[in-house]
């Protein structure tokens, strides 16, 4: 059956009818993006600009004995060379805003330019400013660095051994009980979450399945490489143009790292070519700023793809163990999980988030989850779309599938029976509000794919798998300033960089609230001087939190219009009603446009404003179904058909909700089947190019069928739940379960690359 995924299916569990929300307008920034006019970070060029490049370590772990920049400085066209000495001493300060506030600033500073020691292959050592990028690249070859090479530690299980080389000599484990270890080690932090009594729970179980899983490092793989342009004026004002998920975060990081007043730093968000969690932190911005201060010229810097893969923040590899106990009739009695993630060269992995998600789809009476944040000689890892959840739920959803097979219980029925629902506990969080896991599972069960038997083909190994996924979503802070123009149109300033249509999803909520058309709202992503505090575009938060700020700003504007009209019409403000964009009282009425004109004559120009830090994100569930074919000879897995079901709360802008679902699936398929950092024993990254770090192409995947489920989030006026991240969570488990269905083999490492599948098939035979 041909399914039209252009307009996917939507299943509503509410009766709300909206005028703007749920429609499919053309996005406001679409035209300039299909014509090539949109300006991304590296599309900017300033008069007099110089170009910066970064020298990177050829070793994974080494002491820097000396750096001599004199030959580089002497090269014609070179204007400045900096090393870590150009940064102020971070002392004992902690980082301010950003994704991980409260970590020692010295780690972040040393990750910008290595201080005394290199922690990974590709670690930045020095930066050069020159007349053009080619001269800058030549100058890098003239910087003489003497290294004392040390043994690297690459995997968490090696780094956690008591005799492992300690990468950071003064790193003492922050233990779960609040104490600090006395001996230094590579374990930066331990965490522990517990509910009920796990020992008693396992004692009640008829079946206990206990499995271990391992993970390679993967990269977010955004197509635009990192870039930054900075101009440090003589009066101390620092202007920065960059492609970041958070202009305010970059401003804070620059203030911290450069010890410079935040009021003097102005960050302009350019269009951003993908981020997925990898563009939440500074890499080039501080270097461009320092080189600009030194030369007096604007400095433009851009990474090449090898730099991006070697030295930005991929998401961790590591280890997950999951143990589940169940009764013979398929009720979970207890769960235990142990997660150890690569932090990379400095502390701060996403393991805590993985801990919170590992058992999230289920209501189990007893659970214990332990997490370990482990420093290894790899790049400092960062978030990647539902960070940590994909690893964690690959493990738990594979174990759930094994339990269903062993007990001969239908995997949908098992999940429905054990599903988390409103009022059930969550790890380290208040109990669940209204959530949609059950509704998603039912929609998956009723979907065209699940209801169509898998087509067999002679001599082909085919299988079907299903898996759930959860991501908690994040609120953080967002601001909107909306100005009513005299023709009734609205200029809406918001601080969230738009990576996939959020200008429009924010404008739609504003338009719905004020009762105007979305075409009458002009949403602008504003710079840090022009709009209130807005945190990163991340955590699936923009349509939820910035959308809420837009809703509140529209109500603020509405109140101001009412006040203005009350004066003009000489009526009490509370006698003016507002419906469908028309204000009326006492037989008088005015549309928003008419009101704007009337108020203009009185010198009244309403400006709606709001800053919010909402905390009732609601949490997002997804259920995916994968049909695969496994080539027994090569181990290659092909995706034959794929359905993604997801609770969006209420889908504000459905084509882009579907787009998030489809994009997340394909990233998940790449992670499941192919993507992985390949290191040699000395810690050199061997596949730092898009030829060798191969991401899915159009030919590697089928169309992705989507079913949006709408179980409104009670924590948002329009019921929004973030949608961006959870769709990457189920694919690896759904694919692993499908591979098992096809071949009888259980995969325990991501990616399930052809060589690994082939080896697993051979071992089974």
């Amino acid at each position, binding site marked *: 059956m041909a399914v039209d*995924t*252009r307009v996917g299916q939507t299943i509503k569990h509410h009766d709300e009818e909206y005028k703007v929300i749920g429609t*499919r307008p*053309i*996005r406001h*920034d*679409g*035209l300039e*993006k*299909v*014509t*090539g*006019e*949109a*300006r*991304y970070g*590296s*599309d900017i*060029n300033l008069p007099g600009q110089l170009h910066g490049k970064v020298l990177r370590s050829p070793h994974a772990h080494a002491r820097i004995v000396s750096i001599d920049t004199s030959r580089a400085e002497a090269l014609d066209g070179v204007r400045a060379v900096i090393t870590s000495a150009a940064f102020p001493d971070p002392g004992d300060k902690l980082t301010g805003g950003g994704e991980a506030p409260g970590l020692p600033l010295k780690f972040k500073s040393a990750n910008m330019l290595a201080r005394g020691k290199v922690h990974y292959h590709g670690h930045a050592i020095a930066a050069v400013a020159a007349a053009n990028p*080619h001269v800058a690249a030549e100058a890098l070859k003239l910087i003489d660095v003497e290294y004392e090479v040390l043994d690297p530690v690459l995997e968490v299980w090696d780094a956690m051994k008591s005799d492992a080389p300690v990468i950071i000599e003064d790193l003492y484990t922050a233990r779960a009980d609040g104490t600090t270890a006395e001996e230094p080690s590579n374990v930066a932090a331990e965490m522990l979450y517990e509910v009920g009594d796990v020992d008693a729970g396992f004692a009640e179980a008829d079946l206990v399945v206990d499995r271990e899983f391992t993970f390679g490092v993967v990269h*977010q*793989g*955004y*197509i*635009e*490489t990192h870039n930054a342009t900075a101009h440090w004026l003589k009066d101390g004002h620092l202007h920065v143009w960059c492609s970041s998920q958070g202009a305010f975060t970059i401003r804070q990081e620059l203030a911290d790292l450069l010890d410079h007043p935040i009021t003097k730093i102005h960050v302009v968000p350019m*269009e*951003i*070519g*993908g*981020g*997925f969690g990898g563009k939440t932190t500074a890499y080039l911005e501080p270097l461009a700023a320092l080189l600009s201060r030194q030369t007096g010229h604007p400095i433009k810097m*851009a990474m*090449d*793809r090898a730099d991006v893969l070697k030295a930005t923040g991929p998401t961790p590899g590591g280890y997950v163990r999951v143990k589940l106990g169940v009764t013979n009739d398929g009720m979970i009695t207890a769960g235990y999980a142990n997660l150890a993630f690569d932090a990379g060269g400095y502390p701060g992995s996403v393991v805590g988030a993985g801990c919170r998600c590992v058992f999230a789809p289920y209501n189990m009476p007893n659970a214990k989850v332990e997490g370990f944040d482990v420093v290894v000689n790899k790049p400092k890892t960062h978030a990647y779309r539902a960070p940590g959840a994909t690893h964690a739920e690959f493990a738990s959803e594979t174990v759930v599938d094994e339990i269903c097979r062993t007990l001969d219980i239908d995997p949908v029925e098992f999940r429905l029976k054990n599903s988390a629902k409103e009022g059930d506990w969550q790890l380290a969080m208040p109990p669940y509000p209204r959530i949609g896991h059950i509704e998603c599972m039912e929609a998956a069960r009723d979907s065209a794919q699940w209801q169509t038997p898998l087509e067999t083909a002679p001599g082909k190994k085919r299988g079907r798998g299903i898996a759930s996924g959860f991501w908690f979503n994040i609120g953080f802070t967002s601001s909107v300033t909306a100005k009513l123009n005299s023709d009734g149109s609205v200029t809406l300033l918001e601080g969230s960089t738009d*990576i*996939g*249509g959020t200008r429009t999803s924010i404008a739609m909520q504003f338009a719905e609230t004020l009762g105007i058309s979305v075409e009458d709202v002009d949403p602008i992503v504003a710079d840090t001087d022009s709009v209130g505090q807005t945190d990163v575009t991340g955590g699936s938060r923009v349509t939820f939190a910035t959308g809420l700020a837009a809703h509140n700003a529209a109500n603020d504007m509405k109140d101001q219009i009412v006040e203005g009209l009350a004066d003009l019409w000489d009526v009490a403000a509370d006698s003016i009603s507002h419906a469908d964009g028309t204000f009326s009282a006492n037989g008088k009425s005015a549309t928003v446009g008419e009101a704007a004109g009337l108020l203009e004559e009185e010198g009244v120009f309403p400006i709606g404003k709001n800053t919010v830090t909402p905390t009732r994100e609601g949490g997002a569930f997804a259920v995916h179904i994968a049909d695969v074919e496994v080539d027994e000879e090569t181990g290659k897995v092909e995706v034959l058909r794929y359905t993604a079901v997801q609770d969006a709360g209420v889908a504000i802008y459905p*084509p*882009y909700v*579907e*787009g*998030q679902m*489809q*994009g*997340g*699936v*394909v*990233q998940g398929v790449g992670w499941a089947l192919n993507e992985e950092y390949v290191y040699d024993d000395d810690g050199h990254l061997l596949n730092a*190019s*898009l*030829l060798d770090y191969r*991401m*899915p*192409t*159009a*030919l590697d*995947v089928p*169309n*992705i069928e989507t079913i949006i489920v709408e179980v409104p989030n009670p924590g948002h006026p329009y019921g929004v739940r973030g949608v961006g991240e959870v769709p990457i969570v189920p694919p690896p488990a759904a694919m692993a379960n499908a591979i098992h269905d096809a071949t009888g083999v259980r995969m325990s490492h991501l990616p399930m690359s052809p060589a690994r599948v082939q080896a697993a098939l051979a071992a089974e035979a």
Partner: protein
Amino acid sequence: MATEIQSGKVHVQTTINGESVDFLAEPRESLLEVLRDNLGLTGAKEGCNNGNCGACNVVMDGVLVNSCCVLSVEAAGASIETIEGVASPEGLHPLQQSFLENAALQCGVCTPGFIVAAKALLEENPDPTEYEVRWWLAGNLCRCTGYDKIVRAVLDAAERMRAEA
């Protein structure tokens, strides 16, 4: 025409989007660099600089190329079409319109490359199958969309263009 002048730079005469253009380039500079940095045509993007992502796609003498893998001096005497030349003064190309209506872009950084590549496909094969679209576009990476809406947009544009032809 390419003439070496004294500074070590080469004078290149070429045609871009129907206009005759002159530029000076170092022999080591790629066509992508010259388009973006010398000529201000920043619609073509750099995603990899080694022929693996298609973000830099342009058409040179009727052939779809990765401009990061073409030396700028090779443009001498050639005719080059970039994303900036795809829309006409009358309006968007059907592919551009179709990308908008089908929500076939998210961050949009891959979009110019996809549109240039898809236009080259439809000029060669006005009625491609879904498989042919996927095969042709396999040289263009998109990390955001999962390709579904892009493939549909191309098929949709092909249909519109056939109807108009």
